[in-house]
């Protein structure tokens, strides 16, 4: 498989009156064709900013977003039509991402008429509704007349209307009840298979990622702290922050309880993006931190076949000494 999306050295700084906010600070990752990348982090970690740069809402401060081999960051906010057709987005809250004054038909007709000239509009709308499992009698309803899950299905159908190859999913189910979440996710999984789509799945829900993602990346204050194939990620999480996240998840079965890493002391909160701690940005919350962590930001290193982690526990000297250190502190 080749990389469909290659992101390298991506940065987005916002100038504010209070100072410069480094929302995304030098991140790199690849998304393979047909795969799902889970981008996980707390609020304020910069994950949505990454999605917004990929979709073209923000122009990156620096860095490259290569899509199908071409650097698309150079277009900034003015993207060519083919690109807008290729990359689509589904937002968190369908109640605000759909125009309340447009019916399902109107919401779906616009992208079809722009990006698929010549296609029979009404028939295409029916097809799209069918694909996302929406009853076709909803076609002339307004968003207000639909349930939360149904609204999100309309938003998904709207993203599909342009026949994209890549979709940024920004917390598509976190505004929905867990009983509805399954249906939406399974439709997204079916669509990926059917149309060979690739997703960047932005979320804070690690349990969900364990079930759907091929690769998981953890973001904290604008930086990637750990990346690994999903199975490896959950079997052997390395970064203390990942361990903290995993051990904080409330679970309902004993099997899950056993998978969780040992409880890490949970202290402090994510800092504001204006005052990112020096060195490793996680050090004020990290129970294993020592002097080095306060001064030097650890590089993101490949520790074993694509399992990347940015932590001094693993970067200073040999693996065994690092493992020992972690043992001692625990």
């Amino acid at each position: 498989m080749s990389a469909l999306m290659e992101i390298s050295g991506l940065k987005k700084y916002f100038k504010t009156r209070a100072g410069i906010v480094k929302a995304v600070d030098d991140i790199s990752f690849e998304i393979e064709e047909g795969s799902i990348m889970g981008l996980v982090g707390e609020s304020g970690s910069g994950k949505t900013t990454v999605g917004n740069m990929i979709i073209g809402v923000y122009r990156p401060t620096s860095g490259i977003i290569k899509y199908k081999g071409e650097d698309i960051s150079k277009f900034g906010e003015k993207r060519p039509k083919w690109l807008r057709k290729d990359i689509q987005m589904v937002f968190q809250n369908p109640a605000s991402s759909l125009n309340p004054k447009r019916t399902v038909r109107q919401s779906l007709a616009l992208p079809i008429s722009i990006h698929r000239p010549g296609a029979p509009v009404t028939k295409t709308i029916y097809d799209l509704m069918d694909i996302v499992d929406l009853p076709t009698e909803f076609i002339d309803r307004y968003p207000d007349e639909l349930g939360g899950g149904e609204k999100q299905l309309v938003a998904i159908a709207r993203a599909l209307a342009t026949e994209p190859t890549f979709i940024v999913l920004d917390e598509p189910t976190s505004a929905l009840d867990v009983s509805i979440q399954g249906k939406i996710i399974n439709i997204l999984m079916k669509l990926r298979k059917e149309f060979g789509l690739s997703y960047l799945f932005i979320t804070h829900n690690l349990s969900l990622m364990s079930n759907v993602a091929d690769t998981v990346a953890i973001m904290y204050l604008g930086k990637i702290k750990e990346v690994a194939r999903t199975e490896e990620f959950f079997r052997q999480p390395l970064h203390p922050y990942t361990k903290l996240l995993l051990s904080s998840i409330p679970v309902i079965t004993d099997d899950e309880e056993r998978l969780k890493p040992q409880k890490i002391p949970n202290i402090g909160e994510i800092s504001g993006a204006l005052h990112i701690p020096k060195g490793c940005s996680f050090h004020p919350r990290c129970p294993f931190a020592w002097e080095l962590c306060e001064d030097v930001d650890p590089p993101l290193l490949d520790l074993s076949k694509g399992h990347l982690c940015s932590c001094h526990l693993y970067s200073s000297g040999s693996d065994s000494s690092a493992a020992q250190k972690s043992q001692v502190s625990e």
Partner: protein
Amino acid sequence: MDEGAERILEVKNIMVGYKVYEGELKVLREVSFYVLKGEKVGIIGESACGKTTAMKTVMRILPSNSIVWGGQVLYKGKNMLAMSKKDVTSLRKHNLSMIFQDPSSALNPVFKIRQQMYDIIKYSSDERLTKEEIHERAIHYLKEAALPEVERILDSYPFQLSGGMKQRVNIAMSLVSARELLIADEPGTALDVTIEDQIMRLLKTIVEREHISIILITHSLGVVKGFVDRVYVMYAGTIVEVAPTKSLFSNPLHPYTRMLMDSVPRLIGGGVPEGIPGVVPSYLDPPKGCRFITRCPFRMDVCGQSPPDLREIDQGHYVACYLYNEGRS
């Protein structure tokens, strides 16, 4: 939990709804539950299942278009629904309080925490307190909510605090008057998972130390499992199952409970479950019998005729479902 303990709150068959343009929303249908002294009780269900309406009924803070058709809310044996406003106010001052889901909207954005904290302390005290006493108490409660740098917090506006800090301030405020019963409506839902974990631990420590009873409203099965002694499962304004937490998770009985548990994606992977087909029925014209009938894969003729009663299947484990009526008498 000690069976002989006092029932600090007992809600009996409350029927509550709302008057809207289209007619009457019949939300709560004969909802009953109780809380023992020092007990941690969870109420779980999807959005729009009447969890918050039930709590608002208890606090007597229902909006003006609400209708209470019947039932009793007994606080230490006295019916709050029949109480005078003055008596209810007195209860809210000294005995019970509530924490809301969204910490930002629960605080007034234009006043500093100092002003808001002082006001609540003055309000819930019967004697006249000196400035120093008020300040001392404010510091005491903020510290109890594990807030650092309390003086700085007092001088902050809500927007200057993070979501987790705001929720801690809300907890501190509720502790001023919740000396017996605390109602927490999704206290961690709006927060990140690591902060939610901190908040839930804090709440647990406080209520256990102070022997305060708590009702935790949530839609998260995981949070309920780690927190409460006993769980009420609510669906569409009815209680469908009640059980000690352990019993509920090891042996869920009601089809709704089972399907809800199956819907939660597991950390260990294995694919995303389908969830529960359909939606919560409209309260304008809810099903006459079991309200889960529209989504239940096991529905029978009898389910549509009259609502099933809660029956005890195991010790303290009750379920309202006709599937459990036969074979056990």
